[in-house]
């Protein structure tokens, strides 16, 4: 029972230390305030205990004191906000050139896919010292991807992509938890994050059954689902050609400009009538039920590879952030 017992979690990512600093500051503030209040209470309790012949002195109050003990906590709390916000932006804003992993949460497992196509369940092998970005979606209820050693956590929501990034600093094996209650086996929706030396990671990758590269499986899906029939130039073309499109803007029939990004591709596959591209008939059938979330991620990877920016990566407007 005392195995691995500790009172403070391991810190194994670039942001962990920053979060811990703020945490310790807050612990210090709490300890200071609590000690102050408790010792005052204790002192008053002894000093002013009821004694024969001594009466309480009635005191109205004191405006200067009220101002003081409103202003000091306010200043401290706003400082805690500022610091928290600053570190939060570091936790939240990913660097450029992250390795792109795909995560699908479902009751009750994590399905994870490497940039090179290898798949694993409830485990994530990553190289140390590389920024990693996970693009995540849920197939059913809300889950939450939580790695305590990295001090990162993000809800994995059905119907919308969320993302999280981290850079591991220490080789080792760390807990992966689902932190949003998701039903019966919530506490078994756990796994491991295994941080390896880059060389070991390469070796691990090559030892895996060479799962098809997402771009390659996406290309196969694109063929097998006969997407090309309508979406490549030719006599039977009925929809927009998709080469060079990813990362651009689409003019929709509702007159809006929407980004041709992961969400757009996903929604166009599952619900083609939403945001139809201008200049085409509404003839596409939904592929709901025929493709899995993983299939969609592969198709996205393929479209990215033939897109405007062939490098897998940024599509959202992170640069404009706050």
């Amino acid at each position, binding site marked *: 029972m005392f195995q691995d*017992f500790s009172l403070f979690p391991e810190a194994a990512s670039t942001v962990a230390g920053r979060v811990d600093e703020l945490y310790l500051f*807050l612990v210090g503030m709490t300890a200071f305030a609590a000690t102050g209040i408790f010792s005052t209470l204790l002192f008053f309790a002894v000093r002013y205990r009821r004694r024969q012949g001594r009466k309480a002195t009635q005191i109205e109050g004191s405006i200067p004191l*009220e101002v003081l003990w409103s202003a000091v906590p306010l200043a401290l709390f706003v400082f805690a906000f500022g610091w928290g916000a600053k570190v939060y932006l570091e936790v939240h804003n990913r660097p450029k050139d992250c390795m792109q992993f795909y995560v699908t949460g479902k009751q009750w497992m994590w399905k994870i896919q490497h940039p090179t196509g290898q798949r694993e369940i409830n485990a994530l092998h990553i190289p140390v010292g590389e920024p990693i970005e996970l693009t995540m979606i849920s197939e059913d209820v*809300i889950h939450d991807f939580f790695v305590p050693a990295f001090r990162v956590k993000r809800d994995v929501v059905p*119907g*919308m992509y969320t993302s999280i990034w981290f850079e591991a600093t220490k080789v080792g094996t760390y807990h992966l938890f689902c932190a949003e209650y998701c039903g019966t086996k919530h*506490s078994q929706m756990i796994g491991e994050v295994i941080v390896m030396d880059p060389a070991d990671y390469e070796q691990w990758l090559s030892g895996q059954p060479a799962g098809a590269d997402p771009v390659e499986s996406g290309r196969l899906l694109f063929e097998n689902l006969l997407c090309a029939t309508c979406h490549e130039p030719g006599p039977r073309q009925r929809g927009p050609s998709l080469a060079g499109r990813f990362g651009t803007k689409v003019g929709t029939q509702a007159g809006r400009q929407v980004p041709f990004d992961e969400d757009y591709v996903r929604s166009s596959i599952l619900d083609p009538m939403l945001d139809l591209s201008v200049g085409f008939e509404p003839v596409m059938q939904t592929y709901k039920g025929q493709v899995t979330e993983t299939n969609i991620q592969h198709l996205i990877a393929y479209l990215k590879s033939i897109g405007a920016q062939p490098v897998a990566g940024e599509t959202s407007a992170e640069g404009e952030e706050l």
Partner: protein
Amino acid sequence: MTTSARSSYLDAEPREDNYLAAGYGIKSWLLTVDHKRIALLYLISLTAFFTVGGLFAVLVRLELLTPQGDLFQSEIYNRLFTMHGTFMVFFFLLPSVPAVFGNFLLPLMLGARDVAFPKLNLLSWYLYVAGGLLSFVAMLAGGVDTGWTFYAPYSSTYANSQVIVSALGIFVAGFSSILTGVNFIATIHKMRAPGLTWFRLPLFVWAHYATSLIMVLGTPVVAVTIVLVAIERLFHVGVFDPALGGDPVLFQHLFWFYSHPAVYIMILPAMGIMSELIAAFSRKRVFGYPVVAISSLAIAVLGFLVWGHHMFVSGQSVFAGFVFSLLSMLVAVPSAIKVFNWTATLYRGSLSFRTPMLYALGFIGLFTIGGLTGVFLASLAVDVHVHDTYFVVAHFHYVMVGGVVMAYMGGLHFWWPKFFGRMYPENVARTAAVLIFAGFNLTFFPQFLLGYLGMPRRYHAYPEEFQVLNVLSTAGASVLGLGFLLPLCYLAWSLKYGRKVGPNPWHAAGLEWTTTSPPPKHNFDAIPTVEHGAYAYAELDAEEVAHA
């Protein structure tokens, strides 16, 4: 003060037309519109629900004694913590102080004969009981496993448990809360005795006024949210179902719009009790009275602007996260002000450490920790790490149990002689207070550490390295459980064997102490006229000297 003055307060025979003697049949209770009897009805039913909720807590802690999850299956465990949460939050904490002490004391403190709408008051109790029974039915029919937060789309689509019945129970109980709020607002505005101006009111009344505002403004939003969950389950309209285009994050917005202010519904009346206790056992007016009064209103208003701090990792926008984080910091200030003012009230007081005062001092300690750990959760980066971990569990138990329940117990001992005309046994009561305080800390302090270590809440099984702290927590829970059993026994004992007391056993200021214990059916023989503010201890002491 002399012994002769003291004896005039003790050992008085209750008058024959006291409210307890106004009728003895079941009907005289179930059809009563007397606010004092309704308060006792609440006291009984709240104790029942608290016991049920407590039993669930015991089972949860037992399961967590070992990491394997071997005592119950996970289906059962999930139901246990959900039922613990729903019973404790909706059927104990939310009504607790207002329904028992607010009902009993507001009219007495205001110098009124009853609340503004006595029949509505009885209806509130029936709605509350009906809601509780529905939750019981849901429990017997297989329970509900969504967590007390009912997050969509789990609750609206995926859960295979009694979500609709349980939600209906909460909906009905919500209307009980709303009607109580309406009743209190009207009572406080319109039923004050002549001369009782706003700034002469006891702080207990101010706190209940602020709470009533939140009940009226917030509760309907969660009520309609619950209706939408039920509609979603029945008709799949898509409002919360991402498969149909709904946004599950919207549920969280609507839920927390009420459920964050709801924690102020729970804590504000507890703070009201605190002010009364501190004043009575220091024999002083509360330091900075107007500031403490206004801070209650400030909490009620600011409390509505911070709900998004429950959603920092949910998919809410970064901008909204920043706004809610900053505003959450602001709402911590009025709470801090209260703590400082209570502490300052002790300065140059004449402190006696009877049981209610022990609870009051315990409240200050535990609420300080509970409040300050709230700042951790309002601070974005730390919240990302501790969100949905045991840190959160520890934090809200420090506020809800360390705060609300401590004040509830303190108030119960303080006003027990007023309720029943008999005193509780002091020594055993003090022992229980110390046990509860120690057991509480042992239960919940380790959970702060567990949370920062990363143990997620609502886990049925957990990694072995968390076991030591969990064992400590369970050990503490057994002490805590024992601590709560004691008052149950000795308070029941005191109903028959407790020492009889006169109108004012504590020599306390306040209109409720000017009428007999137990009070007559219509509270006062003549409506009092108020000449000075609450906490007129200087005047009271002078009077006693004159008597002697």
